């Protein structure tokens, strides 16, 4: 391909200028690729959580302070439910006292909601306790040690795995007691929230309606939160944020496109006489058009590939540092951004090169030859 060869040599003729044009594309593609991968990773991570908790409903009292035993029974008639009582209290570990969330749960429910990292779960009516991962870390707690809650000194029989921020309970900075111990300590009546796990994710919506219909028949006494909706809301938010970031990335690509347009325009003007000679000795308009388009294609391809690889690297860093998970990077939906970045780089560059190339091909040989 003689015109491809021409394009390469013409770019090499003005190395510095070509490198600057490529840098513009690199930055634009880097932005698009990195932001695309980041947005996608966040979306994937949200989807993963949705998968874990998407079948969960949380029932909160509306107006009143707690969900009564009677209301709970009505929920249980519809589906299996996990009642949770909670408060915040001062707990003493060894000699350090701290404010933590204290949850009271039926022993059979605990393993459905949290996971133990060490030790065991609570037995029925146990007077022991479980501690969350952060509490355990902060106070260097081990299984077998004791905590002081009000008048009681429950033994720590299990330490939980980290769960992250939840919409139902936040066990990481909490201790969990059996329902019996909790009510003896706090004299609680009713429940602060009820967690409902629906077997089939398709029936979540229906179950939510059923609970609302039954309990809120006369007046609203409970609010039912569908975690799926919350996670989807977050997903939508992240989608919007990543779209916004992609928009910013695109702007930098547009700027890069303008710089390529500029470089190519300069090039056509400088090479007017050369184009005249080429046309005079038998080069077709198409040939000239192709030569200039190849030049912008080469700039775009080099910038695109470098930008996409750097963007991938930045995406990796961000995934590892913020999401602490690199596997999202290699998901096909993330890798798409690698190729999308390259395609955008080449596309922008070629589109920017269209006008100068067209102008060069339109030059009349006789006028171009006269140009000094």
């Amino acid at each position, binding site marked *: 391909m003689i015109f491809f060869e021409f394009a390469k*040599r013409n770019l090499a003729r003005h190395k510095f200028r070509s490198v600057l044009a490529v840098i513009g594309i690199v930055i634009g593609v880097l932005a698009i690729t990195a932001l695309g991968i980041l947005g996608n990773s966040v979306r994937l991570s949200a989807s993963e959580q949705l998968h874990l908790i998407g079948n969960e409903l949380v029932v909160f009292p509306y107006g009143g302070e707690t969900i009564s035993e009677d209301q709970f029974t009505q929920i249980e008639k519809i589906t299996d439910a996990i009642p949770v009582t909670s408060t915040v209290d001062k707990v003493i570990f060894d000699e350090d006292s701290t404010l933590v969330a204290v949850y009271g749960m039926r022993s059979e429910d605990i393993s459905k909601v949290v996971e133990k990292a060490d030790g065991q779960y609570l037995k029925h009516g146990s007077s022991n306790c479980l501690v969350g991962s952060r509490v355990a870390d902060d106070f260097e707690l081990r299984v077998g040690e004791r905590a002081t809650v009000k008048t009681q000194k429950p033994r720590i029989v299990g330490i939980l795995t980290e769960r992250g921020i939840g919409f139902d309970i936040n066990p990481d900075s909490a201790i969990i007691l059996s329902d019996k111990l909790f009510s003896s300590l706090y004299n609680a009546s009713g429940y602060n929230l009820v967690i409902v796990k629906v077997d089939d994710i398709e029936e979540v919506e229906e179950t939510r309606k059923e609970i609302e219909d039954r309990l809120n028949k006369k007046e609203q006494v409970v609010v039912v939160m569908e975690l799926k909706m919350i996670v989807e809301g977050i997903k939508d938010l992240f989608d919007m944020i990543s779209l916004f970031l992609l928009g910013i990335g695109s702007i930098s690509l547009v700027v890069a496109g303008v710089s390529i347009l500029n470089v190519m325009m300069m090039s056509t003007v400088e090479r007017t006489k050369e184009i005249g000679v080429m*046309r005079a000795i038998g*080069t077709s308009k198409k040939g000239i058009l192709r030569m200039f388009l190849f030049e912008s294609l080469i700039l775009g391809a080099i910038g695109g590939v470098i930008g996409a690889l750097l963007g991938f690297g930045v995406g990796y860093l961000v995934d590892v540092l913020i999401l602490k998970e690199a596997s999202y990077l290699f998901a096909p939906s993330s890798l798409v951004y690698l190729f999308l970045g390259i395609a955008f780089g080449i596309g922008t560059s070629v589109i920017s090169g269209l006008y100068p190339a067209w102008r060069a091909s339109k030059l009349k040989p006789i006028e171009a030859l006269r140009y000094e």
Partner: protein
Amino acid sequence: MMIVVELVEVTKVYELPRGSIKALDNVSASVEAGDFVSIMGPSGSGKTTLLNIIGCLDTPTSGRVAIGGENVSGLGDEDLTKIRRDKIGFVFQQFNLIPTLTALENIAYPMRLKGLSGHEERSMELMRSVGLDEKLGENKPTELSGGKQQRVAVARALSNDPDTILADEPTGNLDSKTSKDIMELLKETNERGTTVIMVTHDPLVASYTKRTFQLVDGRIESTA
């Protein structure tokens, strides 16, 4: 003898803001294959316009032009480009080699445009035939002297084996010794059968040719 260039009542008028200028006025002429013609005349007499019209770089306002027996009046850009590529070789005053190509690549370029195979060997052959050392083949035009660049330009003009070579003041940028060499080269080329039409204002240069068209005010005043 076959007629390679035929002009019938060719007129060229340039429309300018201050009025129109008649660069060529009802010019009729023909050049036979194997001829060596110089076009002379004072500046502004229409020499270069005539050469450009013969070279299919410009079109007449009226009249008919035939190249190699083919009427080119009214042909589109694509067809004219092909005629320039296949039937005509150009030699310019300022050599006009393509700066990114080596000497050999410059010579091979018209052949590559045409898609001919074996252009490497033929370019080498042409280099030798215009009296250039093969070693210079890899040099870029800027690394060659003016005379050598013009030799490369002549080789390039010959590469597609054209019927006619059009030369616009081919010695205009050269010293007298090199001018003589280039004229000898063009003469040799003509002796091998290629028609040469050349614009010049130098009578010494014109003396190499077989015929001279004397142009005055856009008309051929005399043919000697």
